[in-house]
């Protein structure tokens, strides 16, 4: 365990160096948040009764989404790992007496946490100070806040478990860009990044809530405001756990076989 912790620490320190990039990211996320909220407000005004969430719950969803973007974005891969796979550096990784899965998992976790750590606080601070109805509301209850934190960790782990499957597929292909962009785009859309899941048509939504993609950002961001509560919430958390173990097992299996018969490229 100690060795994975040091991979984690190293990658975390590396990620914390990019402060200028974080600043640009923050500006973009503020702007994005405002534009989305203004647009949803126009939809809300056109027919408040058709709005599938409380407006304040939606506003909280968007600010949290922007603040924690780095944790849940499905197309953010570790470029070092991708480069390693395509230029044959994978051989060095395989020579190490470590599990490929745990090492890469630790690196991805550290990368995302460092990116989020540099960005989230200012976004949340300003969002909470904004006047009603544009600002971030307080969590529904202390219990909801606690569950928000727990499910956010689960959602993050699930997102990385998904990435690990994609890395696993990447080790088996010569050109993987196509499959990578396809899987991450589909996952992104189904996870509620483009529009939150409650805005999907009801029939599609009932199916979507059972898919792994629903366990990424959808669960924590909706628990925070109490949009997801009661039995539905408990079911969603259980599904998160189930999918996390399924994805982890699948990813491990893929990388295990990659360790045995990886195609090393480059020279």
């Amino acid at each position, binding site marked *: 365990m100690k060795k994975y912790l040091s991979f984690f620490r190293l990658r975390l320190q590396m990620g914390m160096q990019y402060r200028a990039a974080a600043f640009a990211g923050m500006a973009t996320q503020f702007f994005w948040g405002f534009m989305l909220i203004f647009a949803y407000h126009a939809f809300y005004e056109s*027919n408040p009764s058709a709005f599938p969430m409380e407006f304040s719950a939606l506003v909280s969803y968007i600010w949290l989404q922007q603040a924690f973007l780095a944790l849940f974005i499905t197309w953010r891969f570790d470029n070092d790992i991708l480069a390693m796979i395509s230029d044959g550096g994978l051989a060095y990784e395989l020579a190490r007496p470590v599990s490929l899965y745990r090492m890469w998992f630790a690196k991805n976790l550290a990368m995302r946490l460092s990116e989020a750590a540099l960005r989230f606080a200012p976004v949340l601070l300003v969002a909470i100070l904004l006047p009603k109805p544009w600002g971030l509301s307080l969590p529904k209850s202390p219990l909801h806040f606690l569950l928000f934190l727990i499910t956010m960790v689960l959602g993050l782990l699930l997102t990385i478990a998904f990435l690990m499957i994609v890395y696993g597929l990447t080790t088996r292909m010569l050109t993987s860009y196509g499959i990578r962009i396809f899987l991450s785009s589909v996952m992104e859309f189904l996870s509620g990044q483009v529009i939150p899941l409650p805005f999907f048509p009801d029939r599609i939504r009932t199916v979507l809530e059972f898919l792994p993609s629903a366990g990424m950002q959808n669960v924590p961001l909706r628990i925070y405001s109490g949009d997801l509560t009661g039995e539905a919430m408990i079911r969603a958390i259980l599904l998160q756990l189930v999918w996390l173990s399924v994805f982890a097992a699948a990813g491990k299996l893929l990388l295990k076989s990659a360790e045995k018969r990886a195609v090393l490229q480059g020279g």
Partner: protein
Amino acid sequence: MRHGFRLYRHYIAINIRSAMQYKSSFFLTMLGQLLSTVSTLFGVVFMFQRFPVVKGFTLNDVILCCGIVQMQFSLSEMWARGFDSFAQIVRKGEYDRVLLRPRNEILQVFGAKFELSRIGRLIQGILMLAYGIVRIRIRWDFMKILTLFNMIFGGTALFTGLCIVRAGLCFFTLEGLEFMNIFTDGAREHGKYPLNIYGEKFLLFCTVAIPYALVQYYPLIYILGQRDGCGYPFLPLLSLWFLIPSLALFRFGVRHYQSSGS
């Protein structure tokens, strides 16, 4: 002038030939753009299933609008891409070479990179526009067709101006300015809705400060027949003023250019 045009054509030909050497990368880039447009479009369709009319616009109106903005953006991206990767040119000191050649430097930067793969986004834009035109009963007349062309022309010019501003700022910062993405990619993403959706104040800002509304909202309501007036078809051309400060900033930057790199 004629010579400059021939030179530009030559630049383009070289760029296209080089892009065609990497066919799979070319098609995969197009696939990526297609997927991102498809998910945006699905999002819009789902929203309008719940809310059929928003601020006087229907789904078809928004698809038409989205198509036009995509076209404006992709045309500017295609031919002004050289300005996009400009930070690198400045940082590596490659701009020295541009200055040494006895040709207009802006033309050279334009020609430096012609991004053919953006043609995918252009086609998507054309398809959305065509869908909108077929589905909405617009009474087309000469003025409306002229408005449409002016919109595409003016919008391309506006996005190009923003690329030039970004490049001009690179002379001072030597870095890529990611926050400028707000004004280009942000405008493409959020420009899918007619700008009055974001509120009156925002519309005012987009009319006076950066004239997005002149190439999107105002001519759009004229084409859709919500407003009438003989000035509307020519509003997009008014946005051309934005090119003047953009080019001035770039020129000012060139004078400040100190060769960097090795």
